[in-house]
């Protein structure tokens, strides 16, 4: 096991998969000579050459759209969208085409295609760079949505994503790129989709999170522990497919739950989590499920983002509220 940052884990994985399978190729903006604006592809152009690491013209629709054709031709494209917000420029390719090609062709054209994109706030990026749009992409049937929180999962889930016969949106937390470090298994390491991870175990309350918010949840759990509240932190890992079983059984056990995410409240994926629990764990719920999220306002300028993104204090407060209920 080596200790590395999430970014390093991603780079290693891209390299390993390119070595394993010469159909794997990378497409994106500035991923070649520059090695990506965050260096996720550093060194890969010189190792694999310009046919497999392609600096593309500035057009997200064509980057994603051409990846569809490349996949049909027999290749496995891994697309980097420079920031998830700019995947909106390609939504008309992602939702009706990437996600539906298998369905529309009744199985003839599978798309083993991965779209990687950094997202999320707290690092004072310019406007429109920090939006947490994962919820939006969970509304595209046929698309898997993967949200690693740790360096090990970044490797394990990206490996699975690249090998998956279906298209995957792989969201990388900007804030975690260099901050999140951890042990990463050497060699082959593929984490299956649809299995949530219990990041911390506790009997009193479940905090559900994904991506960078898992670390928030863990910090909150640490603080709660000092007050004698034992929290389970459940890292969903993949939103589609959703591990309903673990989600429900965990919350059934604790009876109380808080969901944390960076996106605004309304229609964030937290709504789906709560709605699922409200239906499937109904009789075990001992308190209303709170959502700790950004407010229903656009992501703001850097000078005020500290008050916009969900905080550890908010998670702690909501968890305590839930503990007091009934």
């Amino acid at each position, binding site marked *: 096991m080596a200790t590395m940052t999430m970014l390093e884990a991603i780079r290693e994985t891209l390299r390993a998969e390119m070595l394993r399978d010469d159909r794997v190729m990378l497409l994106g903006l500035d991923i070649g000579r520059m090695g990506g604006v965050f260096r996720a592809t550093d060194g890969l152009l010189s190792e694999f050459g310009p046919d497999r690491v392609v600096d593309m013209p500035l057009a997200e629709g064509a980057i994603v759209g*051409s990846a569809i054709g490349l996949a049909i*031709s027999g290749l496995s494209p891994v697309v980097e969208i420079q920031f998830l917000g700019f995947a909106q420029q390609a939504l008309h390719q992602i939702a009706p085409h990437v996600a539906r090609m298998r*369905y529309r062709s009744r199985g003839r054209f599978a798309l083993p295609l991965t779209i990687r994109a950094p997202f999320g706030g707290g690092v004072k990026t310019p406007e429109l760079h920090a939006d947490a749009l994962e919820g939006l992409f969970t509304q595209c049937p046929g698309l898997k949505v993967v949200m690693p929180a740790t360096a090990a999962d970044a490797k394990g889930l990206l490996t699975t994503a690249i090998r998956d016969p279906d298209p995957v949106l792989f969201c990388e937390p900007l804030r975690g790129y260099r901050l999140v470090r951890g042990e990463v298994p050497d060699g082959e390491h593929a984490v299956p989709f649809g299995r949530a991870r219990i990041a911390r175990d506790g009997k009193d309350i479940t905090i559900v999170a994904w991506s960078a918010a898992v670390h928030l949840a863990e910090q909150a759990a640490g603080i709660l522990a000092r007050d004698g509240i034992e929290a389970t932190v459940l890292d969903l890992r993949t939103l589609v497919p959703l591990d309903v079983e673990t989600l429900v059984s965990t919350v059934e056990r604790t009876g109380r739950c808080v969901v944390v995410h960076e996106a605004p409240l309304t229609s964030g994926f937290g709504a789906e989590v709560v709605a699922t629990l409200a239906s499937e764990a109904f009789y075990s719920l001992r308190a209303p499920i709170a959502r700790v999220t950004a407010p229903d306002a656009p992501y703001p300028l850097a000078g005020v983002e500290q008050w916009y993104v969900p905080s550890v204090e908010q998670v702690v407060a909501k968890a305590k509220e839930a503990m007091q209920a009934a």
Partner: protein
Amino acid sequence: MKVAIEPQFCPSREEIQPISLLRPDGTLVDGAVPTMDDGEVLSALRLMMLSRAFDEKGFSLQRQGRLGTFSPVRGQEASVVGSACAIDPSRDWVVPQYRELPALLRQGLPLMDFIRYFMGNPAGARIPDDVRLLPIQIAIAAQLPHAVGLAWGLRLQRSGGVVLVYFGDGASSEGDFHEACNLAGVVKAPVVFFLQNNGWAISTSRSRQTAARTFAERAPGYGFPGIVVDGNDLFAVHAATSAAVERARSGEGPTLIESQTYRLGAHNTADDPSRYVTSEELHRREPLDPIARVQRYLSQRGRWSEDIAEAYQADVRAEIQQALDAASAASPPAPEMLFEDVFAETPARLAAQRDERLHALASAAMEAS
């Protein structure tokens, strides 16, 4: 002398003449050398006639509720067939919009599948594995980047294949058109952009779609050539497409072909063109019918007669009837199809939804019986 502050690039003043080889009266333009021999012309003509006959049959089936909304090819048969006949179905691909039935058939799609698809049966959506064809495209222009990626991928894998992608004058206004053309130029994708300028995007006229004189003149802005052909001239379309396929295959990259044709009917079975086309305009266009033109050509060469025409007509009708019968005889769609091919493996949540839905339907059927 003052330095002039004049644009280096201006819209052309003169009328652009589309390339044309076959006159409306069926005679060849001076110096024209068709790139198809009589046998090839006859089989192209048969495909054009089949397409026309299907349009007619399809309209009446749609009116009877047996077929869903579909878009006839009427008027554009030379444009579609001339281009499709310029590629090699054993290695080249067609990426269609939705108005190219004969190109689909030439690639090898069974007519019965096309019919089943338009009957709303998902089984018809499965293109046979050896047919190099993408699904019909409904979202305008979205197929263009797919075609570029496919062509690029074929080149990277040295397959020798070329991609022929169809789209309309309307589609040319979408951002996808631009992004696809630009990328194709950069990666020198072996793709032929075949723009069918049929005068309309539903009710929107060509003149309202763009202020450009031609669509073909956009090509140099992407670093490749653009050509304007008479789209109702089978030979001009075939020759221009063959040249473009040749360029692509030899590694010289894309070509944009503007095929100037005319939609001689409704946009689709739901459309009422009398709201926006005058009957005078239609009268002016009818004599340019591409099928009659080829028939006149063959007559002059002694290869066409009323008898042959009748035989062909009977033959294509029989083929259509056969396909219709087969489509009707095939198993009807079933509710479980809804849940198939969403993913390679059905995830637990979707499987639960499937089981619940199928169970409810089964119970309802039990109750009803």
